[in-house]
């Protein structure tokens, strides 16, 4: 098997860019959220400081092997997800490791981190972690459904499962984006997107005082730092998929930055405007509002 070894440094470069972008973007979004509350909010570089601090914590404890593996699974999931999807359309350099699999691989790899995190948190033996996981898993099953339907509609629409080809089909003007050619699918997917971002109204998973932030309640120091790293990468990786599928992908880093930011902003926007759902409410909400859109989008194609 011939393998282009240059792909590795290129992939690492993508990772580096996205990592930094993610740290800044999440801080920026947090600032926007703060502004909505008429605060200044955290400094833009706060995420870097937090990360350094957490890596710099001197002591740590461990609950067992799976406790270690939790964050590792989580970050592997984030990094893998990022690398399995081409970031910049038309760029051989930033097509990453997408030769390994298509859209389906990306969709299922999302769960890799989720599952690993759930296991790690479970190993801590903390009931709140388990409660948080049950909520998270329960919610994600409902939230993933409209996304799956939308993705399927898109795959049907373009008759391919290759992300690159889907992006290619959307080139040549904004009106070729799936957002305009298949608005129902995009609507369904964006509602699903809300559910997967752990922001209000779907953040009961992390209820800070009831079940002190749920799954990661026992995580600290370097474990937490690893998970924070993932917090920077994973949402971007996910948004990259949305961007590629629905919003024409990106042909350059600035376009990438703008699109990712706007998509991210959507969840932040909804998040600051709405209060929290209980889990069963959010499940019903997804089934009643998002799923029919997805169904329609599939029947439409």
């Amino acid at each position, binding site marked *: 098997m011939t393998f282009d070894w240059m792909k590795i440094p290129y992939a690492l470069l993508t990772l580096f860019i996205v990592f930094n972008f993610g740290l800044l973007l999440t801080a920026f979004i947090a600032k926007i959220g703060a502004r909505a509350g008429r605060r200044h909010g955290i400094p833009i570089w706060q995420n870097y400081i937090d990360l*350094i601090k957490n890596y710099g914590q001197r*002591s740590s404890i461990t609950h067992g092997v799976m406790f270690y593996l939790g964050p590792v699974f989580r970050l592997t999931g984030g990094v893998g997800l990022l690398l399995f999807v081409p970031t910049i359309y038309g760029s051989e350099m930033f097509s990453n490791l997408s030769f390994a699999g298509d859209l389906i691989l990306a969709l299922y790899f999302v769960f890799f981190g989720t599952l690993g995190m759930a296991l790690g948190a479970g190993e801590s033996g903390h009931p709140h972690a388990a409660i948080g996981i049950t909520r998270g898993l329960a919610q994600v099953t409902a939230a993933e459904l409209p996304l799956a339907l939308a993705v399927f509609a898109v795959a049907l629409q373009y008759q391919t499962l290759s992300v690159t080809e889907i992006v290619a089909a959307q080139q040549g003007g904004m009106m070729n984006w799936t957002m305009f050619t298949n608005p129902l699918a995009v609507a369904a997917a964006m509602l699903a997107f809300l559910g997967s971002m752990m922001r209000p109204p779907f953040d009961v998973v992390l209820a800070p005082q009831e079940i002190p932030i749920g799954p990661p309640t026992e*995580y600290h120091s370097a474990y937490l730092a690893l998970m924070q790293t993932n917090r920077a990468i994973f949402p971007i990786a996910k948004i990259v998929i949305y961007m590629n599928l629905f919003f024409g992908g990106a042909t350059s880093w600035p376009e990438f930055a703008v699109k990712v930011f706007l998509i991210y902003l959507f969840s932040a926007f909804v998040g600051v405007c709405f209060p929290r759902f209980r889990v069963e409410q959010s499940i019903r909400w997804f089934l009643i509002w998002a799923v029919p859109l997805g169904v329609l989008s599939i029947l439409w194609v």
Partner: protein
Amino acid sequence: MKEELLKRVVKGPDGVEFEVEPLRDYYCEAPPAVHPPVYAKIVEDLFNWARSQSIWILGFGTGCGAIEMRPLMTPRFDAYRYGIQWRPTPRQANLLVISGYLSVKTLKRAIRAYEQMQNPKYVVGLGSCTINGGMYWDSYNTIKRLDDYLPVDLYITGCMPRPEALLAGFEDLKKLIRAGKAEGANQYAENFDWYKTNQKRVIHDWDMPDYNW
């Protein structure tokens, strides 16, 4: 509550009986370790700077002073812009604010919460009550001097201190941290026996391991 910590004999599924000693089987018995700064100075300085710019307070209001902390999150004071945030779990928090008088009952919880935080960690005493008991100086139920029980890095006086005072106090704490002088966690580990003796003197129903990992 102590009964659960007594030794008990249980029968396994294979019918064999054996003894369970909760303090040994369910809790880690290791004493706290001292974690001196080990990296090169420049690295430690970086870390200290980061620690000072990223203070995560444990969201635990121990007394009436807790009410003065809430405004810090509001637009008026907005402590976030100074890198100060609240975390709901001690594992992730760096700073324990003892907000006002501390009843013996709460002391127990405060000790647990403190011990479960990771090194380095800081304690700030808020209000007069943490210094000398304040108006409760003769109460049967509150402790008088906080630093007999936990290593306090900083006191913020007043009854009550205003949020502005808190902010000022945090800025002072940051200076201490940056200077590498906020080593309360190591101090606690070094003088562990002394602290424990003091703690046990006031907490009569001691129903936990000596160190709560």
